[in-house]
């Protein structure tokens, strides 16, 4: 049951929210930055995983010339991501899957994906 005091508070709350209702370009800008960072993370993580996978599976994979080029292009990115090394592999597994719901393991598909990723500055 709502009395006068509760109605007064509800009206006050409604007016407060109405005043506060506005969008923030700054926040959406932050989202855009994160999206950009995710691309970087995914690409760099792909390079790291490619390197790991190559080290483990070299005899069977026999990396092509293009994979060597990719590793060469991505080398500076690996350095850049040294800062977050403890979480790097976790992040990379998640970022390979666009939906982020079921992270893919590092496999042949991952390597193929890495080959098609543009080199980063």
């Amino acid at each position, binding site marked *: 049951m709502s*009395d*006068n*005091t*509760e109605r*007064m*508070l*509800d009206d*006050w*709350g409604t*007016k*407060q*929210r*109405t*005043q*506060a*209702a*506005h*969008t*923030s370009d*700054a*926040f*959406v800008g*932050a*989202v*855009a930055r*994160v*999206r950009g960072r*995710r691309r970087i993370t995914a690409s760099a993580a792909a390079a790291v995983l490619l390197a790991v996978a190559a080290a483990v599976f070299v005899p069977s994979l026999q990396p092509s010339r293009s994979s060597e080029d990719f590793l060469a292009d991505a080398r500076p990115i690996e350095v850049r991501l040294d800062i977050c090394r403890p979480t790097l592999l976790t992040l990379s597994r*998640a970022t390979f899957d666009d939906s*982020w719901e079921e992270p893919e393991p590092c496999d042949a598909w991952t390597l193929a994906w890495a080959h098609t990723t543009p080199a980063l500055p």
Partner: protein
Amino acid sequence: MQRQPDDRRLLLACRRGNDAAARDLYALHAPSLLSYARTIDAASAEDAVQSAFCTVLTRPVRELRGVRHVRAWLTQIVRNEMLGQLRSHRRSRARERRHLPVQSAATHEFTHDVAEMLTMLPRREREIIVLKHVAELTFEQISLALDVNPNTASSRYRSGMRRLREMHEQPRTTHHV
């Protein structure tokens, strides 16, 4: 009040960098959060809310998947942010005045009476009343946001409302200084 059922999905989509989801999430929750934050400190309210939404972008996805009540979770972040800022201000500026949260909101003409009455309540009661009527949280959500027992939240609310009713029913001159 009921939240839209898919705001948890919006939260995850926002985390993944979806601009549209970010706008929707912001439109859905920011007005309530900002209104609440302004009752703590109007000067830093927008920064705190902005910071809370940016926090969404930095939390692990698996943590966001565990969020049951998005607004309660965001409220908790805003509150921690505000309290952190206030502590920082106190240290750096050595504020001598006791913090009276709703006074800043009282600068809005139409809120004058309500805001003034709220400032007369103990902080714990005032905060719960604001979260209930401004942020539109349920007692369960308030208990999550403030990390208190739901019964405690309900009890403080009733106590605060009793005081407010007494003030509200008094002649205007008695609660205006």
